[in-house]
């Protein structure tokens, strides 16, 4: 099919910005754009931090790199905890968001309205506020049939993070479904498919490709947001870094340690962000 010709000289910036805006609207969040330059800058900050700390240390202190190395196993354990929280929150949020997204296009006005409200409430509420809500409103244990089940803090934090993920996935699902041309619904209807069959067999399979890039983007954002759990006292990387710093009791270490934490997150999220961009480009050509 022939595409309408756009003269490349005219308004290239406007067109590019419009496309970026559309992508961001579809993904429900600001697209994460990590460049190699960001990694270089982070590494530079780390080196600078180490240099400053080295200059401030006393003669009998161990070297900065040795100190960081000493704490690395503990920090790594904390990072693994961050990842665990991100996996579980993503899984819960995606499943809940998936159904919420479909509820948003329901033909029943009450369901549609309720889903819309839920989505927008959790999407626009600050993540930290939701986290606090979950931390302080959920009980620390529940008793079901006489069995007392404790709810550890990290579970509550995970739930707190799963809520905004759910809302964002809901928007991703709704956006993807509504981006499928209505003619597909018409064609399915004229072949006597019912609405449920049309959604599951015809519309949704076509959505998966469109949903994948914004979904991965959301995951990268979530991973970086897991450090919020440190504020509510979960033993993740950020909390452990603070503990390490207070144990060392050397103020000069601050910049070095926090840049080190940033580097860990960058190394983990960078490939995801690059992969997202590549998928986006690939699917953009196909459609």
């Amino acid at each position, binding site marked *: 099919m022939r595409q309408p010709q756009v003269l490349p000289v005219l308004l290239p910036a406007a067109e590019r910005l419009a496309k970026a805006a559309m992508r961001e609207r579809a993904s429900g969040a600001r697209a994460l754009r990590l460049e190699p330059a960001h990694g270089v800058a982070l590494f530079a900050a780390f080196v600078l931090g180490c240099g400053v700390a080295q200059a401030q240390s006393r003669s009998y202190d161990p070297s900065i790199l040795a100190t960081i190395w000493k704490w690395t196993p503990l920090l790594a354990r904390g990072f693994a905890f961050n990842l665990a929280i991100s996996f579980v929150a993503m899984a819960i949020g995606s499943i809940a968001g998936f159904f919420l997204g479909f509820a948003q296009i329901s033909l029943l006005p009450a369901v549609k309205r309720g889903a819309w409200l839920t989505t927008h409430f959790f999407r626009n509420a600050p993540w930290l506020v939701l986290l606090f809500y979950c931390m302080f409103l959920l009980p620390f244990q529940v008793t079901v049939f006489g069995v007392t089940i404790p709810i550890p803090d990290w579970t509550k934090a995970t739930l707190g993070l799963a809520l905004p993920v759910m809302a964002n996935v809901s928007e991703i699902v709704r956006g993807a479904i509504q981006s499928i041309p209505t003619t*597909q619904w*018409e*064609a399915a*209807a004229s*072949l*006597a498919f019912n609405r449920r069959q049309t959604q599951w067999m015809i519309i949704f399979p076509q959505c998966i490709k469109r949903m994948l890039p914004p979904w991965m983007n959301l995951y990268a954002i979530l991973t970086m947001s897991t450090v919020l759990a440190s504020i509510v006292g979960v033993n993740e990387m950020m909390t452990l870094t603070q503990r390490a710093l207070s144990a060392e009791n050397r103020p000069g270490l601050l910049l070095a340690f926090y840049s080190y934490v940033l580097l860990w997150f960058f190394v983990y999220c960078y490939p995801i962000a690059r992969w997202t961009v590549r998928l986006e480009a690939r699917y953009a050509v196909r459609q």
Partner: protein
Amino acid sequence: MPEASTRPIVVVDDVHQSFGEVEVLKGVSFTVAKGGVVCIIGPSGSGKSTLLRCINGLVPIQRGSIRVASFDVHALRTDKEKIALRKEVSMVFQQYNLFPHKTALQNVMMAPIHVLREKPDEVRARAIALLTKVGLAAKQDAYPGELSGGQQQRVAIARSLAMRPEVMLFDEVTAALDPETVKEVLNTIRGLAQEGMTCILVTHEMRFAREIADEVHFTDGGRIVESAPPAELFDHPKVDRTRAFLSQVL
């Protein structure tokens, strides 16, 4: 076709349809005999496509009645009732509307398996036979994106036929095709008409309409202006508006 004229399978009577303020159809009436081929011609925006969509219940009508086989289309309310109708009336669209994530064969097989709940083996055999009939047996594993417009449209026709409908609706099925591939699609439709399939075509292919139709309706402004067998309508139009239109397009 002597027996064809005895029992109308589609009866459209005084149909009014409007989108909000805009009245698209302002009292359209016509009938189609079983096995008959009816062509609807007319300028763009005269309500031709809407009329087809009304016949298979995609668009509700405000006044009048439509009867297809044993269904009172205007009275269908629930999805279940509409689905029962659409098993008998199948539609082919201008933009093919194949399912892009399925191969040609899967496109043809999907509805009979999931809607009619027939056995996959039988459906498969029938689907391959249908693709062979439209000349695309070799392309059964191709995805719609890998097929030309004409090929996609023929798959779409096979997909509709797989439902074994009583009536086929064709909505400007060649309008999006380049002139060379129009022919392959028209040949397919011609074959169907000769086999006795009841067809209602909205088309801009006047020569084809003349050749294939039992009756041609010329529509303008939401009304049928003139109806006649093709030879009469094309050669001796009685209404000025028809004459003006034909002089532009022929």
